[in-house]
């Protein structure tokens, strides 16, 4: 079901979405942070797309290339976390040419574990961790006839909506306390917009 060609298609699409939403992401980040999230995401995906000729049938290998792309081009929190996630996914999928439903679940589990560990993040902090958790739960619920793209689209939006009115508890955003209730977390927003590409 999910192979090298699918993978390339997805990253091509993510790169396109990252260009479309470049300013939105920067702006959302600028309200509470340094305003580089659009740069971070676009640079990372661009570097992946630039390197797609080096993709092989081994998806683990490809995820390693993706991780390196984010390492090289995207040194902000978001980029660093994604790079760590992609690296751990790569290790776990080494040699795999095709992903099963179980593998997809595994991928999200790895991301969640990695971010908790590396980002010292808790569920409920209003970060990308929460969005990933929403996705994972939805994927696990489904047994057959799964439309991943639908799940990504709907659950990233659900995550975003369910955190409206809640405070952001990580990073510099903490300083703004009550004010952050009115803001979407830029990372969560970005995931929901990127999902439109699926």
């Amino acid at each position: 079901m999910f192979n090298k060609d699918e993978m390339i298609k997805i990253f091509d699409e993510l790169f396109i979405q990252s260009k479309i939403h470049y300013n939105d992401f920067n702006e959302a980040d600028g309200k509470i942070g340094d305003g580089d999230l659009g740069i971070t995401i676009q640079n990372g995906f661009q570097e992946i797309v630039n390197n797609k000729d080096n993709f092989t049938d081994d998806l683990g290998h490809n995820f390693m290339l993706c991780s390196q792309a984010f390492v090289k081009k995207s040194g902000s929190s978001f980029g660093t976390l994604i790079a760590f996630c992609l690296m751990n996914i790569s290790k776990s999928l080494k040699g795999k040419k095709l992903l099963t439903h179980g593998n997809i679940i595994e991928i999200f589990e790895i991301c969640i574990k990695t971010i908790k560990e590396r980002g010292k993040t808790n569920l409920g902090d209003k970060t990308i961790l929460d969005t990933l958790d929403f996705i994972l739960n939805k994927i696990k619920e489904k047994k057959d006839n799964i439309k991943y793209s639908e799940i990504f689209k709907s659950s990233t939006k659900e995550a975003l909506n369910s955190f409206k009115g809640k405070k952001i508890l990580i990073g510099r955003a903490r300083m703004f306390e009550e004010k952050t209730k009115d803001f979407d977390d830029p990372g969560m927003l970005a995931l929901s917009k990127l999902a439109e590409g699926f």
Partner: protein
Amino acid sequence: MKKIINEPSNFVKESIQGLVTSHPDVYSFAEDNENVITRSTKASNKVGIVTGGGSGHLPVFTGYVGEGMLDACAIGSVFASPSVDQIASAIRNGNNGNGVLCIIGNYGGDVMNFEMACEIVAEEGIQTKKLIIADDIASASHEDRLKRRGIAGMIYIFKIAGSLAENGKSLEKVFEITSLANDNIRTLGVALSPCILPEAGKPTFEISNDEIEIGMGIHGEPGIKREKLRKADPLVDDLCKRILDDIKLDNKDKVSIMINSLGSTPLEELYIISKRVNENLSKLKIEIIKSHVGRYATSMEMAGMSITVLKLTDDLEKNLLSNSKCPFWTN
């Protein structure tokens, strides 16, 4: 805010090349990584002092490599963290066989990448300690102060850690004393204009011609208050009050202060500010042992400045005033 640069994508690379070429007696490229700068003459035996972080803040971070200061530094892109492998290389190069103190500015990417790098080099037998600088009182409340970002106060830590290491202190001891110093530092800044990222080509934020932002971060992160531009004295009084409310100094205390330009704010203005900081502290009978006035931690050509207060112990004072060799530090 026009720039004298070549390809924006070569901005960091060329400026670091220029740094090394201009001061070959101080800086060298690491042999194994072109984004790592080491001293041109490696130290022996002493504890290594290593840092790393985004570019665009010169002299921070790389500028402070030098005898009596840092051993090595990992260099990220503009306002972005260096990667794990770059940091690991900096630690390996900065290690002189007695462990390495990593000084980190408390930015998400930097902290995570340093942590990972420390795990990697631990496997190779290099002992590390991580000191997270948290002097910016605008970036988290007093209760949450371990989460504050590191800004200009960081340089005090570079100097003191460098001096302690040079004097043969163990990694534990260097960590212990610099941790104390870290607790004794407070910085608060104000931004007047944005800077332009070479690759983006446009300002990092917008601010109108009669406004300033108190507590803005060195990447243009929003501060705690945007207000009308005031005269220097009331502005400085306000910043001093916030700093002193946070650190609580007594009239027997002695301090060092740093009046730091974010880039384009000139020395003349820094000295007007320094004069007023002095008056504020004198009124409280706090003794200023040493004032540092200049560009120590910048955001390229951003206009604005920060005030840092370091509360001194005898030990910290001695190490602050010790000799070092670095183009950006005079004693």
